[in-house]
Protein backbone atom coordinates (compact mmCIF):
# COMPACT_ATOMS: atom_id res chain seq x y z
CA UNK A 1 0.00 0.00 0.00
CA UNK A 2 2.89 2.34 0.71
CA UNK A 3 4.09 1.94 -2.90
CA UNK A 4 1.08 3.79 -4.24
CA UNK A 5 2.39 6.96 -2.57
CA UNK A 6 0.24 10.08 -2.54
CA UNK A 7 -2.55 8.27 -4.35
CA UNK A 8 -3.24 6.19 -1.23
CA UNK A 9 -3.93 9.38 0.72
CA UNK A 10 -6.16 10.67 -2.10
CA UNK A 11 -8.22 7.45 -1.87
CA UNK A 12 -8.42 7.90 1.91
CA UNK A 13 -9.51 11.50 1.35
CA UNK A 14 -12.39 10.30 -0.86
CA UNK A 15 -13.63 8.04 1.96
CA UNK A 16 -13.19 10.94 4.37
CA UNK A 17 -15.37 13.16 2.14
CA UNK A 18 -18.08 10.48 2.13
CA UNK A 19 -17.96 10.25 5.94
CA UNK A 20 -18.02 14.05 6.21
CA UNK A 21 -21.01 14.18 3.90
CA UNK A 22 -22.86 11.63 6.04
CA UNK A 23 -22.00 13.63 9.16
CA UNK A 24 -23.23 16.89 7.57
CA UNK A 25 -26.39 15.12 6.35
CA UNK A 26 -27.31 14.08 9.88
CA UNK A 27 -26.59 17.58 11.26
CA UNK A 28 -28.08 19.64 8.41
CA UNK A 29 -31.29 20.50 10.28
CA UNK A 30 -29.29 22.00 13.15
CA UNK A 31 -27.65 24.79 11.12
CA UNK A 32 -27.79 26.22 7.59
CA UNK A 33 -24.06 25.91 7.11
CA UNK A 34 -24.23 22.13 7.54
CA UNK A 35 -26.95 21.98 4.91
CA UNK A 36 -24.89 24.06 2.45
CA UNK A 37 -21.74 22.01 3.11
CA UNK A 38 -23.72 18.81 2.67
CA UNK A 39 -25.07 20.02 -0.68
CA UNK A 40 -21.60 21.09 -1.87
CA UNK A 41 -20.09 17.74 -0.97
CA UNK A 42 -23.01 15.88 -2.50
CA UNK A 43 -22.60 17.83 -5.74
CA UNK A 44 -18.91 16.87 -5.92
CA UNK A 45 -19.17 13.27 -4.70
CA UNK A 46 -22.30 11.93 -6.40
CA UNK A 47 -21.05 11.05 -8.85
CA UNK A 48 -18.98 13.21 -11.21
CA UNK A 49 -16.15 13.81 -8.73
CA UNK A 50 -15.90 10.17 -7.77
CA UNK A 51 -16.12 9.01 -11.39
CA UNK A 52 -13.40 11.38 -12.57
CA UNK A 53 -11.19 10.31 -9.64
CA UNK A 54 -11.85 6.67 -10.44
CA UNK A 55 -11.00 7.18 -14.12
CA UNK A 56 -7.72 8.95 -13.42
CA UNK A 57 -6.49 6.49 -10.80
CA UNK A 58 -7.82 3.40 -12.58
CA UNK A 59 -4.62 2.48 -14.37
CA UNK A 60 -2.14 3.04 -11.54
CA UNK A 61 -4.30 1.44 -8.86
CA UNK A 62 -5.11 -1.57 -11.07
CA UNK A 63 -1.44 -2.09 -11.95
CA UNK A 64 -0.23 -1.82 -8.36
CA UNK A 65 -3.04 -4.04 -7.04
CA UNK A 66 -2.60 -6.67 -9.74
CA UNK A 67 1.20 -6.70 -9.34
CA UNK A 68 0.78 -7.00 -5.57
CA UNK A 69 -1.47 -10.03 -6.02
CA UNK A 70 0.85 -11.48 -8.70
CA UNK A 71 3.90 -11.24 -6.44
CA UNK A 72 2.49 -12.10 -3.02
CA UNK A 73 1.81 -15.59 -1.78
CA UNK A 74 -1.72 -16.03 -0.57
CA UNK A 75 -0.71 -17.85 2.62
CA UNK A 76 1.02 -14.76 4.01
CA UNK A 77 1.67 -14.73 7.76
CA UNK A 78 2.29 -11.08 8.53
CA UNK A 79 -0.75 -8.91 9.21
CA UNK A 80 0.53 -6.13 6.93
CA UNK A 81 0.87 -8.60 4.03
CA UNK A 82 -2.65 -9.95 4.56
CA UNK A 83 -3.97 -6.38 4.74
CA UNK A 84 -2.10 -5.53 1.56
CA UNK A 85 -3.60 -8.52 -0.31
CA UNK A 86 -7.10 -7.77 0.94
CA UNK A 87 -6.77 -4.09 0.04
CA UNK A 88 -5.54 -4.98 -3.46
CA UNK A 89 -8.43 -7.41 -4.03
CA UNK A 90 -10.91 -4.85 -2.78
CA UNK A 91 -9.57 -2.10 -5.02
CA UNK A 92 -9.58 -4.32 -8.11
CA UNK A 93 -13.12 -5.53 -7.46
CA UNK A 94 -14.47 -2.04 -6.75
CA UNK A 95 -12.79 -0.49 -9.80
CA UNK A 96 -13.89 -3.26 -12.17
CA UNK A 97 -17.47 -3.46 -10.92
CA UNK A 98 -17.95 0.32 -10.86
CA UNK A 99 -16.70 0.66 -14.44
CA UNK A 100 -18.80 -2.28 -15.68
CA UNK A 101 -21.90 -0.99 -13.91
CA UNK A 102 -21.50 2.46 -15.43
CA UNK A 103 -21.10 1.05 -18.92
CA UNK A 104 -24.05 -1.34 -18.59
CA UNK A 105 -26.30 1.43 -17.31
CA UNK A 106 -25.42 3.72 -20.19
CA UNK A 107 -25.77 0.94 -22.79
CA UNK A 108 -29.19 -0.04 -21.42
CA UNK A 109 -30.69 3.44 -21.89
CA UNK A 110 -28.53 5.57 -24.15
CA UNK A 111 -31.36 8.06 -24.74
CA UNK A 112 -30.92 9.63 -21.30
CA UNK A 113 -27.25 10.43 -21.90
CA UNK A 114 -28.15 13.80 -23.40
CA UNK A 115 -30.22 14.96 -20.40
CA UNK A 116 -28.83 17.69 -18.15
CA UNK A 117 -29.62 15.61 -15.06
CA UNK A 118 -27.43 12.77 -16.31
CA UNK A 119 -24.60 15.15 -17.25
CA UNK A 120 -24.62 16.78 -13.81
CA UNK A 121 -24.73 13.40 -12.03
CA UNK A 122 -22.63 10.98 -14.09
CA UNK A 123 -21.34 12.93 -17.05
CA UNK A 124 -17.62 12.65 -16.22
CA UNK A 125 -16.79 9.69 -18.53
CA UNK A 126 -18.72 11.40 -21.34
CA UNK A 127 -17.06 14.79 -21.02
CA UNK A 128 -16.14 16.19 -24.38
CA UNK A 129 -18.48 13.84 -26.27
CA UNK A 130 -21.31 15.34 -28.29
CA UNK A 131 -24.18 13.56 -26.56
CA UNK A 132 -26.75 15.16 -28.89
CA UNK A 133 -25.56 12.64 -31.50
CA UNK A 134 -27.04 9.93 -29.27
CA UNK A 135 -30.46 11.15 -30.39
CA UNK A 136 -29.60 9.87 -33.84
CA UNK A 137 -29.37 6.46 -32.14
CA UNK A 138 -25.62 6.48 -32.62
CA UNK A 139 -24.66 4.02 -29.89
CA UNK A 140 -21.12 3.97 -31.21
CA UNK A 141 -20.49 7.02 -29.00
CA UNK A 142 -20.52 4.75 -25.95
CA UNK A 143 -17.44 3.08 -27.43
CA UNK A 144 -15.19 5.95 -26.35
CA UNK A 145 -15.70 5.77 -22.55
CA UNK A 146 -15.86 1.97 -22.79
CA UNK A 147 -12.47 1.96 -24.52
CA UNK A 148 -11.07 4.20 -21.79
CA UNK A 149 -11.42 1.36 -19.31
CA UNK A 150 -10.94 -1.48 -21.75
CA UNK A 151 -7.55 -0.30 -23.03
CA UNK A 152 -6.26 0.02 -19.47
CA UNK A 153 -7.51 -3.46 -18.62
CA UNK A 154 -5.92 -4.75 -21.85
CA UNK A 155 -2.63 -3.09 -20.88
CA UNK A 156 -2.75 -4.82 -17.49
CA UNK A 157 -3.45 -8.19 -19.12
CA UNK A 158 -0.65 -7.60 -21.62
CA UNK A 159 1.99 -6.94 -18.96
CA UNK A 160 0.91 -9.76 -16.63
CA UNK A 161 -0.49 -12.54 -18.79
CA UNK A 162 1.68 -12.03 -21.89
CA UNK A 163 4.79 -11.47 -19.82
CA UNK A 164 7.15 -13.52 -21.96
CA UNK A 165 5.63 -12.62 -25.33
CA UNK A 166 6.77 -9.15 -26.30
CA UNK A 167 5.16 -9.29 -29.73
CA UNK A 168 1.73 -9.96 -28.17
CA UNK A 169 2.19 -7.02 -25.79
CA UNK A 170 3.14 -4.65 -28.58
CA UNK A 171 0.44 -5.99 -30.90
CA UNK A 172 -2.28 -5.33 -28.29
CA UNK A 173 -1.01 -1.80 -27.71
CA UNK A 174 -0.63 -1.12 -31.43
CA UNK A 175 -4.05 -2.48 -32.37
CA UNK A 176 -5.93 -0.55 -29.69
CA UNK A 177 -4.29 2.78 -30.62
CA UNK A 178 -4.93 2.16 -34.32
CA UNK A 179 -8.55 1.18 -33.70
CA UNK A 180 -9.10 4.33 -31.65
CA UNK A 181 -7.56 6.56 -34.34
CA UNK A 182 -9.91 5.05 -36.93
CA UNK A 183 -12.90 5.28 -34.56
CA UNK A 184 -12.23 8.95 -33.76
CA UNK A 185 -11.95 10.04 -37.36
CA UNK A 186 -14.88 7.90 -38.58
CA UNK A 187 -17.49 8.69 -35.92
CA UNK A 188 -16.18 12.10 -34.72
CA UNK A 189 -17.72 11.62 -31.27
CA UNK A 190 -16.35 14.80 -29.70
CA UNK A 191 -18.26 18.04 -29.43
CA UNK A 192 -15.83 19.98 -31.59
CA UNK A 193 -13.43 19.34 -34.46
CA UNK A 194 -10.53 20.52 -32.28
CA UNK A 195 -11.39 18.00 -29.54
CA UNK A 196 -11.64 15.15 -32.07
CA UNK A 197 -8.32 16.11 -33.66
CA UNK A 198 -6.66 16.48 -30.27
CA UNK A 199 -7.76 13.02 -29.20
CA UNK A 200 -6.59 11.63 -32.55
CA UNK A 201 -3.27 13.40 -31.99
CA UNK A 202 -3.01 11.67 -28.59
CA UNK A 203 -3.69 8.27 -30.11
CA UNK A 204 -1.23 8.91 -32.93
CA UNK A 205 1.40 9.86 -30.35
CA UNK A 206 0.84 6.59 -28.51
CA UNK A 207 0.94 4.73 -31.84
CA UNK A 208 4.24 6.35 -32.85
CA UNK A 209 5.68 5.57 -29.42
CA UNK A 210 4.60 1.94 -29.88
CA UNK A 211 6.48 1.84 -33.18
CA UNK A 212 9.58 3.00 -31.32
CA UNK A 213 9.05 0.19 -28.82
CA UNK A 214 9.54 -2.31 -31.65
CA UNK A 215 13.15 -1.12 -31.76
CA UNK A 216 13.88 -1.32 -28.02
CA UNK A 217 14.78 -5.00 -27.99
CA UNK A 218 17.26 -7.43 -29.54
CA UNK A 219 16.02 -6.64 -33.06
CA UNK A 220 18.22 -3.53 -32.70
CA UNK A 221 21.34 -4.95 -31.02
CA UNK A 222 23.42 -1.74 -31.02
CA UNK A 223 22.95 0.19 -27.76
CA UNK A 224 24.00 3.49 -29.38
CA UNK A 225 21.23 3.18 -31.97
CA UNK A 226 18.72 2.44 -29.22
CA UNK A 227 19.97 5.46 -27.31
CA UNK A 228 19.48 7.68 -30.38
CA UNK A 229 16.00 6.26 -30.85
CA UNK A 230 15.43 7.01 -27.17
CA UNK A 231 16.08 10.69 -27.88
CA UNK A 232 13.42 10.68 -30.62
CA UNK A 233 11.04 8.73 -28.37
CA UNK A 234 11.45 11.38 -25.66
CA UNK A 235 10.93 14.15 -28.24
CA UNK A 236 7.60 12.63 -29.29
CA UNK A 237 6.41 12.54 -25.66
CA UNK A 238 7.50 16.09 -24.96
CA UNK A 239 6.02 17.33 -28.24
CA UNK A 240 2.66 15.89 -27.20
CA UNK A 241 2.84 17.63 -23.82
CA UNK A 242 3.94 20.92 -25.41
CA UNK A 243 1.08 20.92 -27.93
CA UNK A 244 -1.42 20.28 -25.14
CA UNK A 245 0.01 23.03 -22.95
CA UNK A 246 -0.07 25.53 -25.83
CA UNK A 247 -3.68 24.66 -26.67
CA UNK A 248 -4.69 24.91 -22.99
CA UNK A 249 -2.99 28.29 -22.70
CA UNK A 250 -4.58 29.55 -25.92
CA UNK A 251 -8.10 28.46 -24.93
CA UNK A 252 -7.69 29.99 -21.43
CA UNK A 253 -6.53 33.30 -22.96
CA UNK A 254 -9.47 33.19 -25.38
CA UNK A 255 -11.89 32.66 -22.47
CA UNK A 256 -10.35 35.59 -20.59
CA UNK A 257 -10.57 37.79 -23.70
CA UNK A 258 -14.24 36.85 -24.18
CA UNK A 259 -15.00 37.54 -20.50
CA UNK A 260 -13.40 40.99 -20.74
Amino acid at each position, binding site marked *: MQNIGFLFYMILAQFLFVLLHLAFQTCRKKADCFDKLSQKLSKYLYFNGVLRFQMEVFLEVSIYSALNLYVHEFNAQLA*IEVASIVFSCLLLVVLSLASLYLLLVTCARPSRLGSEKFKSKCGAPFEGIDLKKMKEANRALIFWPAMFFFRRAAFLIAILVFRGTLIAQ*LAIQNFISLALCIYLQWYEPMDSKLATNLETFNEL*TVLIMTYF*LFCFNDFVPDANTRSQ*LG*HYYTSVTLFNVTV*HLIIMLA*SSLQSIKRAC
Partner: protein
Amino acid sequence: MKASLNKLWSMLNSQQIAVYMPMYELKFPANAMMVTKEMVEIANFDLIPTDLLDEYLWY
Protein backbone atom coordinates in the same frame (compact mmCIF):
# COMPACT_ATOMS: atom_id res chain seq x y z
CA MET B 1 -12.26 26.64 -17.47
CA LYS B 2 -14.18 23.45 -18.16
CA ALA B 3 -12.79 23.23 -21.70
CA SER B 4 -9.22 23.66 -20.41
CA LEU B 5 -9.79 20.98 -17.80
CA ASN B 6 -11.02 18.63 -20.52
CA LYS B 7 -7.79 19.18 -22.40
CA LEU B 8 -5.77 18.62 -19.22
CA TRP B 9 -7.51 15.29 -18.61
CA SER B 10 -6.97 14.39 -22.24
CA MET B 11 -3.22 15.06 -21.93
CA LEU B 12 -2.94 13.19 -18.63
CA ASN B 13 -4.84 10.19 -20.00
CA SER B 14 -2.46 9.81 -22.92
CA GLN B 15 0.59 10.34 -20.70
CA GLN B 16 -0.67 7.65 -18.31
CA ILE B 17 -0.48 5.15 -21.16
CA ALA B 18 2.92 6.44 -22.27
CA VAL B 19 4.66 6.35 -18.87
CA TYR B 20 3.81 2.69 -18.25
CA MET B 21 5.32 1.51 -21.55
CA PRO B 22 8.62 0.58 -19.86
CA MET B 23 6.68 -2.20 -18.10
CA TYR B 24 6.80 -4.20 -21.31
CA GLU B 25 9.67 -6.68 -21.74
CA LEU B 26 11.90 -4.12 -23.44
CA LYS B 27 15.45 -2.76 -23.33
CA PHE B 28 14.58 0.86 -22.73
CA PRO B 29 17.43 3.29 -23.32
CA ALA B 30 18.54 5.21 -20.24
CA ASN B 31 17.67 8.65 -21.66
CA ALA B 32 14.05 7.63 -22.33
CA MET B 33 13.83 5.99 -18.90
CA MET B 34 15.07 9.17 -17.23
CA VAL B 35 12.37 11.31 -18.84
CA THR B 36 9.68 8.66 -18.26
CA LYS B 37 10.66 8.50 -14.58
CA GLU B 38 9.96 12.22 -14.20
CA MET B 39 6.72 11.99 -16.22
CA VAL B 40 5.44 9.10 -14.04
CA GLU B 41 5.08 11.37 -11.02
CA ILE B 42 3.02 13.89 -12.97
CA ALA B 43 0.83 11.33 -14.74
CA ASN B 44 0.09 9.48 -11.49
CA PHE B 45 -0.57 12.61 -9.40
CA ASP B 46 2.33 11.66 -7.12
CA LEU B 47 3.39 15.27 -6.78
CA ILE B 48 3.46 15.67 -3.01
CA PRO B 49 6.19 13.68 -1.19
CA THR B 50 4.70 11.42 1.45
CA ASP B 51 7.89 9.93 2.94
CA LEU B 52 7.31 11.37 6.43
CA LEU B 53 3.68 10.29 6.50
CA ASP B 54 4.62 6.82 5.23
CA GLU B 55 7.20 6.50 8.00
CA TYR B 56 4.63 7.27 10.67
CA LEU B 57 1.97 5.09 9.10
CA TRP B 58 3.83 1.99 7.94
CA TYR B 59 7.06 1.76 9.94
